């Protein structure tokens, strides 16, 4: 068990030892160690991107009672290769009035934060690439760079619809960032630290011997986790929040004038960002690399982490296949008038749970503090959007 | 890397912001200059915190955090005012907002 668990770390140490024996100086070994970690993380996530680009189409297809891509390899699994060749060989069109520097740099500025945020996620026991003390804050600070990229893409295309799509996308991302950050702070508050590995360790142990103590199984954790999940869907511009890139609304929104490899870079950045925020969701609420049952700890911790991330990504694809798109005013009203007060309620519930001693009283109080605003907001919120009873007038 | 170098950088940033405020006529450019000046002041605070003999005194860091919060609030309100002025005057050049003149 321990061997498989520590396999990546031992492999890297063995490789560096070998190179050290060959006379490579220490400072070069340090740089090489960092490069190995960076290379592995990027390779894993780009591989996940490639796999997801075909799995998403197949899952959507199966939900819609059809097959999905199945020509290019066994079960269509080599589709990403075909897609990559297509994207690379497509003509790269730049609109005539477009701002050349801004139009060119937008995909770069989109991809860089998506890759940078992968540095603080704990992929397994003792497997964090960078141990930052303010890790969660770093995640959101670097994620703010994505909004700049969306604006650059929209404005640099010299196209009214792109600018409009970019403004809607930025409004959506800013609005959903607040409940997202607040629910992440709930988990950090209970764990007592902003370091992701400390938050994962705070979810360790099993109550009654077999129930995992993940934050998502508590009332406040369930609420905060659900708010984080919805915010994650909105931050990655995924359905049902994909108005900024909905084809029937604004062509492709801020991505209209991009073709070929630049579009592939945006696509890649969106998927890597989706996996990164799924990774943070797993870290904060689903126990990170912890196994759900004590006897399942045979399976290595990094397997559990990636398994959980893939499961959360699968649910995101499932939600995309199921729910219709939200209109922009519904979307913004949902964020400001429902999710924001609910995240405050989750915050208060978590604090009460902690200070009431984490016992039965704490569980009861937090449940009430979360349920009452939910029922109140839920009923009052939908009344405005309720469809009135139709009256039919027939010609007599 | 001495304290004087960091303070010199902050002084240059401040004078760039001051130049923007004094010479540009677009209201949003004025706001950008003000943000630069606030950033320079924050850099000063952090420079003095870093080079001070007592790094456990957190006043420098906390002042910088409060200053960032105040700057964000001021940017939001300032831009709302600029949008309102545009709606009434159809122009955002500060030279055109001269109804009280004479």
């Amino acid at each position, binding site marked *: 068990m321990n061997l498989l668990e520590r396999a990546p770390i031992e492999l890297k140490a063995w490789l560096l030892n070998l190179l050290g024996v060959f006379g490579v100086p220490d400072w070069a070994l340090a740089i090489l160690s960092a490069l190995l970690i960076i290379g592995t993380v990027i390779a894993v996530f780009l591989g996940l991107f490639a796999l997801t680009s075909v799995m998403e189409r197949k899952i959507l297809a199966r939900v819609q009672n059809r097959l999905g891509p199945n020509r290019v390899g066994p079960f269509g699994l080599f589709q990403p290769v075909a897609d990559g060749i297509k994207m690379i060989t497509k003509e790269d069109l730049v609109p005539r009035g477009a701002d050349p520097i801004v139009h060119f740099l937008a995909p770069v500025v989109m991809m860089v934060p998506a890759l940078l945020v992968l540095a603080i996620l704990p992929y397994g026991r003792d497997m964090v690439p960078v141990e930052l003390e303010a890790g969660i804050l770093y995640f959101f*600070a670097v994620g703010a*760079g994505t909004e700049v990229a969306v604006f650059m893409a929209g404005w640099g295309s010299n196209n009214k619809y792109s600018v409009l799509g970019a403004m809607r996308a930025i409004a959506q991302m800013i609005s959903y960032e607040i409940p997202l950050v607040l629910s992440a702070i709930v988990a950090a508050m209970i764990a007592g630290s902003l370091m992701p590995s400390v938050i994962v360790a705070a979810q360790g142990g099993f109550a009654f011997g077999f129930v995992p103590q993940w934050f998502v199984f508590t009332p406040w954790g369930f609420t905060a986790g659900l708010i984080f999940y919805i915010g994650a869907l909105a931050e990655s511009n995924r359905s049902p929040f994909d108005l900024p890139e909905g084809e029937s609304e604004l062509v492709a929104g801020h991505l209209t004038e991009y073709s070929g490899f630049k579009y592939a870079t945006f696509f890649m950045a969106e998927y890597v960002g989706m996996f990164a925020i799924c990774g943070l969701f797993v870290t904060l609420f689903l126990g990170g690399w912890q196994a759900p049952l004590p006897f399942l700890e045979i399976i290595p911790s990094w397997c559990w982490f990636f398994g959980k991330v893939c499961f959360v990504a699968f649910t995101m694809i499932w939600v995309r296949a199921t729910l219709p798109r939200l209109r922009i005013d519904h979307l913004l009203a949902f964020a400001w008038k429902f999710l924001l007060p609910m995240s405050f309620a989750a915050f208060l519930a978590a604090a009460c749970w902690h200070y009431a001693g984490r016992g039965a009283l704490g569980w009861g109080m937090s449940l009430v503090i979360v349920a009452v605003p939910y029922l109140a907001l839920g009923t009052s919120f939908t009344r405005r959007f309720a469809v009135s009873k139709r009256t039919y007038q027939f010609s007599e | 890397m001495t304290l004087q*170098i960091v303070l010199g950088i902050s002084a240059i940033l401040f004078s760039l912001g001051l130049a923007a405020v004094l010479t540009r006529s677009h209201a949003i450019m004025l706001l950008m200059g003000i943000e*630069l000046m606030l950033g320079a002041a924050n850099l000063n605070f952090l420079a003095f915190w*870093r080079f001070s003999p007592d790094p456990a005194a957190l006043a420098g860091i*906390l002042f910088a*955090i409060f200053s960032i919060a105040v700057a964000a609030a001021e940017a939001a309100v300032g831009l*709302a005012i600029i949008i309102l002025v545009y709606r009434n005057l159809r122009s955002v050049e500060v030279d055109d907002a001269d109804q009280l003149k004479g």
Partner: protein
Amino acid sequence: MMCDFFHSLCADPVNAIGGWFVLLPAAVLLLAAAASVVLRNLIHAALCLTLSFIALGVVYLALGAEFVGFVQLLVYVGAVAMVIVFAILLTRPDELERSRSFFAGFGPAGGAAAALATLAVLLGAIFTSPTGDRPMPPAVAVPVADLGKALMGDYVVALIVIGVLLTAALVGAAVLAMEDEP
């Protein structure tokens, strides 16, 4: 004195790498700020301002203030820069948004002279002061928990006042920018 400083940075690069960590982002910061002041195209100026905010955040990180650096990136780049860009887009005149440039007219000469005079006074004060010529002491990691305790302990009044200020700004900006009911 400046020559000594650069000489010391180049002579012993490994130990002076802390100095380069501050100087390189600072150079990007000053260039981007100068560009944002001088450029005629407003959106370019706003994007250069965003770059200068990012560089300022990196300078804060290089000075060892991790929390402030990330807060700078989160608040300035993610919020203030986006609000500035939104305001530029919402207040566009019908023709090209080319504001009067830095170099147009006589006013800028006076403004630039005033800014240069201020710079001269500041630099003079900085480089003649006796307390300024001290080297960078070793970095001390400030745990975020200590910042939290200080905010909730000694500085709680300031925290609450900032909270009230931000709420007032939020409500005020929303009310100001709201369209009047027809």
